[in-house]
């Protein structure tokens, strides 16, 4: 074995430990367990709510199930918030802040890859059904307002919000907080209006008999299931994205981004772009191709 194949043993120690006075270990935390506890209570509540646990003490009553579901979700949210709070408190302890920011960004990217895979299943469903089943598709009636101007306007609004969101992100990373505030508010409004358009369209469709379970004039209801699940799952993501943007705004107002560590803003804005890209794909598959 040649000497060149051996790395000098101390190189790493010098690079790694330089400038730090003690070994950083992750502090313990009860919040992962609390979060998991919430996710233990909630599914049992859901099953009970669906009438599945009849004969069980307490959970046998669907009303208790409803309570358990809500309690579970509350515990879950409390766990998550306390977790986030602990992270904020521990922020100054970071071993290597720049690397930590990079790691967190990689986390968000990977998380979005996973999300894309979940949406991929819906796209796979739509493509496959379009390919094998000619009767698969939206209501045939030419008077039915499917793919009308409302969807196009909503798409335009969401695309614009992606632009304003990016402006906000850019402004935050460059410390221009007043402009960032303006852009964030604009993004939130655009996103909320998009959701409203979506809700309005759903309402209109459902009134005309195109519900999640049925399509007028005897069309195949599997399209209805895919349409409402796809747009609903996406709408849920828009709502979560709005919450994330709102939280980033609050963090900005609390002065958290003054040290240049703007991860939560970056994450919220990437999430928002992702939601936007998925919508474009959904729009094309649901409205243009179908």
């Amino acid at each position: 074995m040649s000497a060149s194949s051996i790395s000098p043993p101390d190189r790493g120690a010098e690079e790694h430990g330089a400038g730090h006075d003690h070994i950083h270990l992750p502090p313990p935390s009860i919040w992962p367990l609390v979060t998991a506890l919430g996710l233990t209570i909630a599914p049992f509540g859901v099953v009970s709510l669906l009438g599945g646990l009849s004969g069980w003490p307490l959970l046998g009553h669907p009303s208790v199930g409803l309570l358990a579901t809500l309690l579970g979700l509350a515990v879950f949210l409390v766990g998550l918030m306390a977790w986030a709070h602990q992270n904020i408190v521990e922020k100054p302890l970071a071993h290597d802040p720049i690397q930590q920011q990079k790691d967190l960004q990689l986390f968000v990217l990977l998380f979005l890859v996973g999300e894309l895979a979940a949406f991929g299943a819906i796209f796979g469903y739509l493509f496959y059904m379009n390919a094998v089943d000619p009767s698969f598709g939206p209501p045939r009636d030419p008077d039915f307002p499917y793919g009308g101007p409302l969807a196009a306007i909503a798409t335009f609004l969401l695309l614009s919000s992606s632009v304003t969101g990016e402006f906000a992100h850019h402004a935050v990373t460059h410390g221009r907080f007043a402009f960032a505030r303006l852009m964030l508010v604009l993004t939130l409004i655009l996103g909320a209006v998009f959701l409203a358009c979506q809700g309005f369209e759903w309402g209109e469709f459902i009134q005309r008999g195109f519900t999640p379970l049925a399509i007028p004039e005897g069309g195949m209801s599997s399209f209805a299931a895919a349409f409402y699940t796809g747009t609903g799952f996406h709408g849920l993501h828009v709502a979560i994205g709005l919450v994330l943007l709102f939280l980033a705004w609050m963090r900005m107002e609390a002065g958290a981004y003054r040290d240049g560590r703007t991860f939560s803003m970056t994450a919220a804005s990437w999430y928002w772009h992702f939601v936007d890209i998925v919508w474009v794909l959904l729009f094309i598959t649901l409205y243009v191709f179908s």
Partner: protein
Amino acid sequence: MTDATALPLPAPRYRGLMDWLTTTDHKKIGLMYFWFVVIMAIVGGAMAGLIRVQLAMPGATVEALQQAALTGTTALNLFSDDTGLFADWGGRHLYNQLVTMHASIMIFFVLIPGFVGFANYIVPLMIGARDMAFPKMNALGFWLLIPAALLQLASFFVAGGAAASGWTAYPPLSLKEFSAGPGQDMWILGVHLVGVSSILAAINFIVTITSLRAPGMTWGKLPLFAWATYFVSIIQLVATPVLAAAVTMLLLDRNFGTTFTKASQGGDPVLYQHIFWFYSHPAVYIMILPGFGAISHVIAAFSGKRVFGYTGMVLAIGVISFIGFIVWAHHMFTVGMPLWAQAYFMYGSLVIAVPTGIKVFSWLATMWGGTLRFTTAMKFACGFISMFVFGGFGGLFLALTPIDMTLHDSYFVVGHFHMAMVGGSVMLLFAMTYYWWPKMTGRMLCERQGTWIFWLMLIGIVLAFMTMHVTGALGMARRVPVYFKDFLILNHISTLGYVLTFIASLWFVVDLVRSYWRPPVTENDPWRVNDVQQSFEWATSCPPPAHNFDRIPPIPILDPKR
């Protein structure tokens, strides 16, 4: 640079049970994974036992049941609805539940988290990291397994019992019409939670391996177990959400009246199968590839040589991971796909034999000319190679569309995947435990008993699962509690094999527990393998301190390619 040991460590905030409940230490979380997996393996193994008892004593063969139907009498059957031993607990329906839940538990709570647990403990040590990149998320990934397991196990105690439509949960069998009870819904919610746990662990491993490698630990020197974990994490990240989507469609169809999988209203049950296997074929590799990486370390360690063909090994894992995504439909040759699709999925599946062969031959070449030490870990490694090659060849048969048409849903399939999963993955987990147990607990496992356990396991596996290939080729259908009387003797042999395997496993667990009372290991490297390993885990004490290493990196890194 001053000596880091002299510097203050933050004092632990909790003690005792609270210390475990609040831990963010990858080593403690890894051990919790390990013991969770041991408990679930005993539960799942006991379910297999009930299945095997039924098949050893079917009470009534198909002939006898036909006779009984003709004469209007009842034949005795362990799982029959009115007279059998289990009549009070759902009769033959219980058999379906056991088959389903045995598979679900072994897949979701033993094999997948088994390797995740080892990776949790070992990979940060291997790459010279202090912990995982996201320690709290790591803890959440473990804790979520518990509600998932609770949901699936509790479903035995609801009206209609646990899920009984097979672990594949094909519609229409898994829809309300045929699985009315809430057991199926609880199964689905459990799968969701396992999925979240898998995805969190996968993201964590990818970030950890990307950014927490000690300086000098380049990608080209990354230990093979870390490489395997990395690729498997990518598979988990991309495939698991698809499974979640598939079972969500089932959940909606079952409870809210949507028609994703209902053919009468434009849905497509075959499409569910496509989506399901898009996850579940890669999941097969989630259940074995990490072990492929780990076993390279074991074989190199006890051959006294470096791993042969490091680059080829890494590429082979990568290629298997990729091809694993594009061959899923070889599980569904009999659903009526177009001929081109059958041909494509057949040839694609056969291609996987090439990288797998590269790995097997590289292991053999690692041993070739080495100073072999047949420790228990090495015995399990050799047992794994032989059993896995057998299981793999069974897979080649099943990948051939025309042969699969006859063997589909027969015991040949059961024999094949048990050979690969028990003869493969479980042997791997045993080898990894024997190899790394001193590192994880600071105690040795008994080598003498290990030899007994190994031979019992090996003989048991051969008897149980090699026999199933014959039973299946002769025509015994899977998932059916009765059979023609010609198969009686073959099933007795399989059950005998099961008994040996189960005894060996229990013996192993007893030895695991007893090891805690043995004298602690005082050396860092009790196997004396460090000179052939390119990883850091043997360079710290057994078990490692909370901060893993006093200095990073503590040893020179060998270049695996030289």
